[in-house]
Structure formats: structure tokens, C-alpha cells
């Protein structure tokens, strides 16, 4: 019972601000509405007993990504405080595409047989994640860090050129 209640509350916490993110005409409000969404997803991670991922989710998404988005909005001239048009003249077309996509997703979800085998959860997921990153998934891990490094260097190069 409690799990269902938690799921429903968290779903509302994720979905209502998510709707605000896309519909709000105030861009700062839209960006701030991301925070409850991210925190709700954190709640799901905790329900799945993935504490480490939950902590990282708060630290990176709520604490850093949102702040970065807000920071960019506030530094952009005329970016904050202005009312942004969120809807174009193509509402019917977009609505059709959305409904079609929702239908497709529902069909796929209902036809998939979900493997619900009971595996053994690691007692301490931090260690398991660390080991996995440096053994089985070391290539992906290193390539990701390389991509991040390249984007970092690229950002510096672009910023330098403007001087």
C-alpha cells in the first residue's frame, strides 16, 4: 500500500512540474520547475534501492544542471523576465503527432513481457558500480570522459576567440 502511495505521489511530483516546464511562458519558472521533477525521479531511484544513483541525481541534475540552466538564462541579455511564446500555429499537427506517439508507446508497453526475475541486489551498490565502471564497462567510461574533455576544450576555444 505504502509503495503504491509513494509511487502515485512521486508521479504527480514529476508530471505536474514537467507540464509547467513546457507550458510556462516565463522561462525562469520553467527552469525552476525542473527541480521537483528531478527530485521526483530521485524518489523513484530510492524506491528501486539505487541509493547511489539517487544521490548523484540530486547532486548533478538538481544541484548543477538546473543551476547551469538558470545561470545561462540570467546572463543572456533579455532572456529573463520576458514572456516567451510557448505555442506556435501548428498545435493540431503537434497534438496529432503526440497522440500517435502516445498510442505507439502504450502498444509497445502493453505487448512487452517484462522480465521480473528476482535477482540478488548488491548489498552496497557504490562498490558494485565502481567495480563495473573499471572492469566490464571501462571502455565506455573512458570514452565518456574523453567526450567531456573535448567539449570542455571546445568551450574554452570558443570563449577565447571572442576576446
Amino acid at each position, binding site marked *: *500500500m*505504502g509503495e503504491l*502511495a509513494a509511487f502515485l505521489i512521486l508521479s504527480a511530483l514529476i508530471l505536474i512540474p514537467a507540464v509547467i516546464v513546457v507550458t510556462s511562458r*516565463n522561462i*525562469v*519558472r520553467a527552469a*525552476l520547475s525542473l*527541480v521537483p521533477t528531478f527530485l521526483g525521479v530521485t524518489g523513484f531511484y530510492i524506491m528501486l534501492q539505487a*541509493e*547511489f544513483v*539517487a*544521490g*548523484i541525481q*540530486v*547532486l548533478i541534475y*538538481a*544541484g*548543477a544542471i*538546473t*543551476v*547551469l540552466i*538558470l*545561470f545561462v538564462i*540570467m*546572463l543572456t541579455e533579455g532572456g*529573463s*523576465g520576458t514572456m516567451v511564446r510557448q505555442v506556435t500555429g501548428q498545435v493540431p499537427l503537434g497534438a496529432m503527432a503526440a497522440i500517435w506517439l502516445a498510442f505507439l508507446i502504450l502498444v509497445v508497453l502493453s505487448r512487452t513481457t517484462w522480465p521480473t526475475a528476482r535477482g540478488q*541486489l548488491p548489498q*552496497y551498490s*557504490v562498490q558494485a558500480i565502481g567495480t563495473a565502471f573499471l572492469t566490464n564497462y571501462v571502455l565506455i567510461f573512458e570514452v565518456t570522459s574523453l567526450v567531456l574533455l573535448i567539449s570542455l576544450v571546445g568551450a574554452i576555444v570558443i570563449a577565447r576567440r571572442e576576446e
Partner: protein
Amino acid sequence: MPEPVSFFREILKAIGLAVVVFTFLAVVGAMYGVYFERKISGWIQARIGPKHVGPYGLLQTIADTVKLLQKEHITPRRADALIFNTAPLIVAVAALLDWVVIPFGKEFGRVLIVRDINIGVLYFAAMASITVIGILAAGWASNNKYALLGGLRAASQMISYEIPLALGILWVVMIAGTLSTVGIVEAQRGGWFLFKVPPLGLLAAVLFLAAATAEVNRVPFDLPEAESELVAGYFAEYTGMRFALFQLGEYGEMFGMAALASVLFLGGWLEPNLPAWLWVALGLSALGVAAFVRFSALRTVYLLRPIMALAVLGAVLSAVMALGISTGRAPVLPSLIWFFAKMFALVFFLMWMRWTYPRLRLDQLLNLSWKVLLPVGLVNLLLTGFLLTVAR
């Protein structure tokens, strides 16, 4: 795995603990934090500080709080009212949530902690990073250029210093092998992490404290609220209790950082494991310092008063410890006293820093983070990792 839990009871327990922690923060953290700050700043600037309300001015902040509670709450006309009124709550709640993972001591056979979660220190860092959203939102929603500038400065500063903070925490996690705060304290039974792998432990502690000072926006890193250039920074437009909530958040976070630093590096609630003669030596040297200040020409120097007071306190503590050990009692003082002694020593240190050093410039601040603390932290981690692997 999880035994069936009564959700109703868990929720009641959570509410009760939240009330306890909030009361503790509001009274010890904010009210007496402000009182100590004013008293210590008075000492350092050769004045007396609050003294009229109550004995030694002890009731001054209570009077101030009552005054703030009665004040009118003003929302500026062009402000974004919803965000404006929510922002102080975010800051206060984030500071409150920090305290979930702080272990206060070990009494009656159990650890006094709200919840010992196995990602403890990661959780702490995550909650500390939430604060900046509240600050940024407050700065923007006030519709005031000073507030906005303060908010932007806070964002750039806190994002930059989160990384050295995490590196300092990571060093401890590497040595302790666990993220749980209770586990970290238990791992220090052999000796404080401050003196582990010298001088790398000290380096990590300095890194952590510098980053923590910047995270809680205190001098020398108080650019977001630099009163001489930004009026008051991000909370310039706030009045009454909402302003007090910002103060509560700030002091709550500062006490939280001091508590975490004492858990990470000073062994938390554990009693230092020193022989009796060392305690006697410590006490005598502290007494010597106090006597020197008291009976030389230095007694007229107000600046040395706090040092004298601290030396006397240290001497009393050492005397109690030496007596206790020589009469053969294993833990001489209760663990709660040790935790609070360490935490308040660190709080005092932070306040001392605040009233001693001038404010950094913004570029100096960012350079310090990215060009000094970050490389030092990374090299520290690398060296420690190397040593740990070699030692294994």
C-alpha cells in the same frame, strides 16, 4: 531485505525528528550562532559585542528573533511573488536536510543520528548543492539588480567550490572505504583522519574547510552578500521572518559543514585516544599560554582575549581528561560532549577566519578554486590512491 514497515509510524517518526532537528538548528545554529558571531567579532575588533539584553547579552538574539517575527512581510511589487516567497524555504529546508546524516554521538547503545544511510556523505553534498537553487531564485525573483548580481555570484561560486568540497570528502571515503558517516567515524578509532598519511590528511582537511567556507558564503568568500558593494546581495529585498529563514539556512549550513568536518577529519564523537601524560602536557601548555596573556602587557590587547578564553577552556578539558584517565575510566566524557566540542571548535575557527581576512575579488576567488584547490585535490587523491595500492 526490508522487513515490513509501518508507514504511519515511519512518517510520525520523521515528523518528530524534523521538529527536534529544526529546534536544535533554530536555537543552537541560528540564535546562538549569531550571538557567538557577534561576541567573537567583538573580541576580534576590540569591542564588547551585545551586552544589554540578559546576562552578557545572552538574550539578544531571542529579542531580535521576536522582533523579526513581528515585522511586516513585504513582497516588492514587480517581484515574482511565488518564487520570491518560496526561495527562503528552499534554503532553510536544504540546511535542515543536511543534518539527517550527522551523527551526534553514541549513547544508550545506539548512535544518535536521524538516519544512517549508506550514501551519507554523498547525500550531504547533494543537499548542500540544493541551497544554491534557493539563492539563485531569491536573487532573480527580487527584481533588484543587487540581488540578481548576488545570486549570480553565488551560483558561480558554489558550482566552482562544490568540486574541491567533493574531492576533500572523496579523500576520506577512499581511506575509510565507506560513504556512511557512522562508518567513517568508526573507521577513525585508530586515529583521526586529519593525521592519517601525513601530510595528505591535513591537506584534504584544509581543502575541505576552504571549500566549505565558500559553499556557505562566508568571508573571505562572501561575495554573494558583500554588503559594501551589493547592499546585502541576494536577500536585499527580504524582510521579517523570510530574512530570518535565510539566516537560519546560512547558519544551519555553516554548523552542518563544521559538524561534517569534525566527523570526517576529527573523529566525530570518538574520544581522542591519548595517554594521561600527554593530556597533562597539553593542559599545562594551554595554562601557560593563558597565564602569559593574562599577566603580561598583552592583557590590554583585546585581540588576544579569545585566545586566552580558548586556552583556559582547553586547560580545563585537559585536566578533566588527565584526571579521568588516571582514575581508570575508559571513556571519560560522554560522546555528545566530544562531538559538540569539536564542532564548536570548528565553528569558532570559521568565525575567526571571517573576522580576520578581507574579502577576495571574484576572479581571485574563481582562480583559487580552479587553479589551486582543484589540482591540489586531484593530486592528493592520486597520491593517496597510489599509497593505498602500494600498501596493500
